[in-house]
């Protein structure tokens, strides 16, 4: 295949332009300096510098013209850049002519100022063409790009899918390289017509067939893949944004219909709900089983004493001051140890004391630790009267009462714990007869009474044998 000669010449433009920029600017500087007696010796070089710069400018104009024919650039920018470039070339020819016909000094000086300004502006426009208009100022305004692409849309069903949802996604994630100012791979995504036209490798979308659409494929490639879009260092589309694009392509890329007029398969419904709420960007659900407020670090001496008694005391996370305490390998347990627990009550978030002998003093200390969100007090002598005092533990979310002496009466005392989510009551005094009462009183709490059995099936004890 023959690459056309014009195209080839055009490709040299980005190299050639540096010649007139450098040489003409040098000529200007030489010209200004030569006014000073000290630098009078450089005068003979000025003429040559102007000549070389002029030749460079002419070749740049020619190659630039071919390049503008072969690539898709924003027409306004190209027009300005092209004509300013041509003017620069003409002014430099004039300057050379004037220089050799010994025009007066002010004229030469003003010519050099004109050249200086022209070269600067033309060069900047050329840079904008290749790197994008916001290339220079990008760094100054970068933080504004983060954040949600789409604000909450309370009336999402009435929104027009393309205009109100798809186009803003393209605008936020793709325009900077595939928009009016820059067309990497000759692809523009800023109007339905451009999207359908595709880029230098052909179509990027196939209406109704998202799996065959290059655009979707590129978005779904792993971040490490060379062809992944957007490039690794640019802000990425969230999964919900991708599924919206997928949906738009799979339903035929309509540009006028409202969301409610388009078929909604099951998998798009939660995404549309998120769109309505403005939560398209939410990725992971934050850990909620810790108190929301921050807390001061616990007394290291107390932690040391607990650890010496064989009790595991560690922060719930490296940066957190909340503590997780486990009695699993406690050497001996006594009331003074529980007293120590009370002195870390602000930090104690998760506590496990499976099978630990309980005294009333222990319960007092335990219930003073009101920040607890997870408490496992299984296989202990805990009774209803003691459990009543747990109603102070307002942050409690998960409570493990397996193998304790509590009954339904005791459990119902926990009615006021608003955050309670899971309670385990396997092997306690709670009977299935009370189930209805418990369900009515502890609404929204998942209560696991255990006693599961796995029935014995014929297959569990027999083997399949090979036919003889």
């Amino acid at each position, binding site marked *: 295949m023959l690459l056309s000669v014009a195209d080839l010449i055009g490709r040299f433009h980005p190299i050639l332009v540096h010649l007139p920029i450098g040489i003409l600017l040098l000529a200007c500087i030489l010209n200004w300096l030569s006014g000073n007696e000290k630098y009078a010796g450089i005068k003979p070089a000025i003429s040559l510098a102007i000549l070389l710069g002029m030749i460079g400018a002419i070749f740049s104009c020619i190659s630039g013209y071919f390049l503008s024919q072969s690539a898709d650039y924003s027409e306004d920018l190209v027009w300005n850049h092209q004509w300013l470039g041509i003017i620069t070339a003409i002014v430099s020819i004039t300057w050379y002519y004037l220089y050799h016909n010994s025009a007066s000094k002010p004229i030469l000086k003003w010519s050099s100022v004109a050249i200086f300004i022209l070269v600067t502006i033309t060069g900047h426009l050329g840079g904008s063409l290749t790197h994008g208009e916001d290339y220079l100022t990008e760094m100054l305004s970068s933080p504004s790009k983060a954040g949600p692409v789409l604000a909450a849309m309370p009336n999402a069903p009435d929104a027009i899918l393309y205009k109100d949802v798809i186009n803003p996604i393209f605008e936020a994630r793709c325009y900077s390289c595939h928009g009016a100012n820059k067309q990497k791979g000759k692809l523009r995504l800023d109007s339905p017509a451009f999207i359908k036209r595709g880029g230098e490798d052909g179509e990027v979308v196939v209406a109704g067939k998202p799996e065959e659409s290059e655009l979707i494929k590129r978005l779904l490639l792993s971040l490490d893949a060379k062809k992944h879009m957007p490039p690794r260092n640019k802000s990425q589309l969230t999964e919900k944004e991708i599924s919206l694009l997928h949906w738009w392509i799979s339903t035929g890329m309509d540009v006028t219909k409202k969301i409610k007029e388009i078929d909604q398969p099951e998998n798009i419904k939660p995404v549309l709900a998120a769109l309505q709420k403005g939560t398209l960007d939410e990725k992971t659900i934050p850990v909620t089983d810790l108190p929301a407020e921050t807390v001061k670090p616990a007394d290291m001496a107390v932690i040391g004493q607990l650890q010496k008694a064989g009790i595991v005391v560690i922060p719930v996370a490296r940066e*957190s001051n909340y503590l997780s305490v486990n009695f699993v390998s406690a050497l001996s347990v006594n009331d003074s140890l529980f007293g120590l627990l009370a002195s870390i009550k602000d930090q104690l978030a998760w506590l496990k004391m499976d099978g630990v002998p309980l005294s009333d003093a222990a319960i007092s200390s335990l219930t003073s630790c009101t920040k607890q969100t997870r408490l496992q007090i299984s296989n202990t002598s805990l009774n209803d009267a003691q459990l009543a005092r747990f109603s102070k533990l307002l942050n409690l979310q998960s409570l493990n009462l397996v193998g304790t002496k509590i009954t339904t009466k005791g459990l119902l005392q926990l009615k006021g714990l608003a955050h309670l989510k899971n309670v385990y009551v396997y092997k306690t005094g709670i009977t299935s007869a009370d189930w209805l009462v418990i369900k009515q009183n502890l609404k929204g709490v998942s209560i696991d009474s255990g006693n599961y059995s796995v029935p014995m099936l014929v297959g569990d004890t027999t083997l399949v044998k090979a036919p003889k």
Partner: protein
Amino acid sequence: MTQKELHDQRLLKEAEAAILRMHTRRHFLKESAMGLGALAIGSLFGNCGLNSANTAKSASTSIAFDPAHPLLPKAPQFPGKAKSVIYLHMAGAPSQLELFDYKPELMKMNGQDCPPSLLAGKQFAFITGVPKMLGPQAKFAQHGESRAWISDNLPHLSTVADEISFLKAVSTDQFNHAPAQLLMHTGSARLGRPSMGSWVTYGLGTENQNLPGFVVLTSGGSFPDAGKSVWGSGFLPSVYQGVQCRSEGDPVLFIKDPDGMSRNLRKASIDAINAANQQEYEEYNDPEILSRISQYEMAYRMQITAPEVMNINDEPDYIHEMYGTKPGKACFANNVLLARKLVEKGVRYVQLFDWGWDAHGDNPNNSLNIGIVNKCRSIDKAITALLLDLKQRGLLEETLVVWGGEFGRTPMMENRNGIDAPYKGRDHHTEAFTIWMAGGGIKKGYSHGETDEIGYSSISGKVQAYDIQATILNQLGFNHEEFTYPFQGRPFRLTDVGGKVINEILA
């Protein structure tokens, strides 16, 4: 002189010679030369070591390793949902097409020649020429509110489908057992990397100092093909390697003191060994020696606690019935019950391997409708019981249960050397298989990923070993990209350069 006296005398002489060797002039000179050389090298490379200023920043984000107490519990990077992991690995690779991935279209193609498009450019372990397609060898139905497809090979598990998140489109790039198992558990198909359990105990330590943090239990009559490297510690300190235990008899061999040796004498001998090791440490400063000291101490403590915790016989009868254990025999169900006991007692990572899932169909024992059905029966009740038992004890919330193999099986019937297998069997398949997770902050009753209509390739929700590892670490409170260990001059991580947390299956 009796034999014994002779022996004692020889020992004494050896000891004396050793002491002399320590202090000869020759030894002094040799050590000096080496020592001076080491000093010189040390100053040359002073900036490359782990203690240099360059690594100060990374040290603040990495794990504080205390060689004298390597297994003390540590805080994760962020609050984790899961505290422990039970990983059930079916070594040999179970067939997803007979368990979870229902493909009615494949049944229609049963017995037909495999289309060339599925064979072109592909490599299989045994298939040659043009194999026949093989329809599902089990009956499928949807179960639970989540309408999960599970075959009649797992009637018990079907009842707890709503606890499970299935990953239907797992893929790997290894089609032989050993490298595929290594990839699944160490993040590399080649030897030398630490296993997941080692990483986890390195990062989190373990809550019960009287038990190992990482326990391995095997069943099925054989070790996994990759050998003990699948629970090895690689370049991590050796204290983090998996401790292989037995579910019958002594959990750890030679854990009992031999007859005639009292507990005090044992203590005295361990103290003596540790004192010698301490001296050695003071001379060489090798942290591995401190680890060794702590291991001796742990072994001493384990002598008391391990037989108690690791004895499943003191569990009530109804629990044994629930799991379907076989008292007195080594079997998967016993291991599963033991795994629950260990997790209950604060063991961090329990790794089970059950061998015998390699369904090639070259004999009845590995055929899909005979031997593999029996394998399913041997795990079904126990796994179901495990999920329910953890749930009723309130432990499923913080225990991540993972089930899977090292790869999947082909939709084609195996035709080793071009001859159809005498029984129904499938070859190794890398492009699509099923792994499931439950508990530990994983979504209940969910299915992620799809395969094509014959179960050959993954078409959506494709995940790999690295993604599963990243997800497991995430549930334990680690960002897999920041959880590293410096080795040979660069930080290493479990997921190498890959891995993406599978957010879809997180609750």
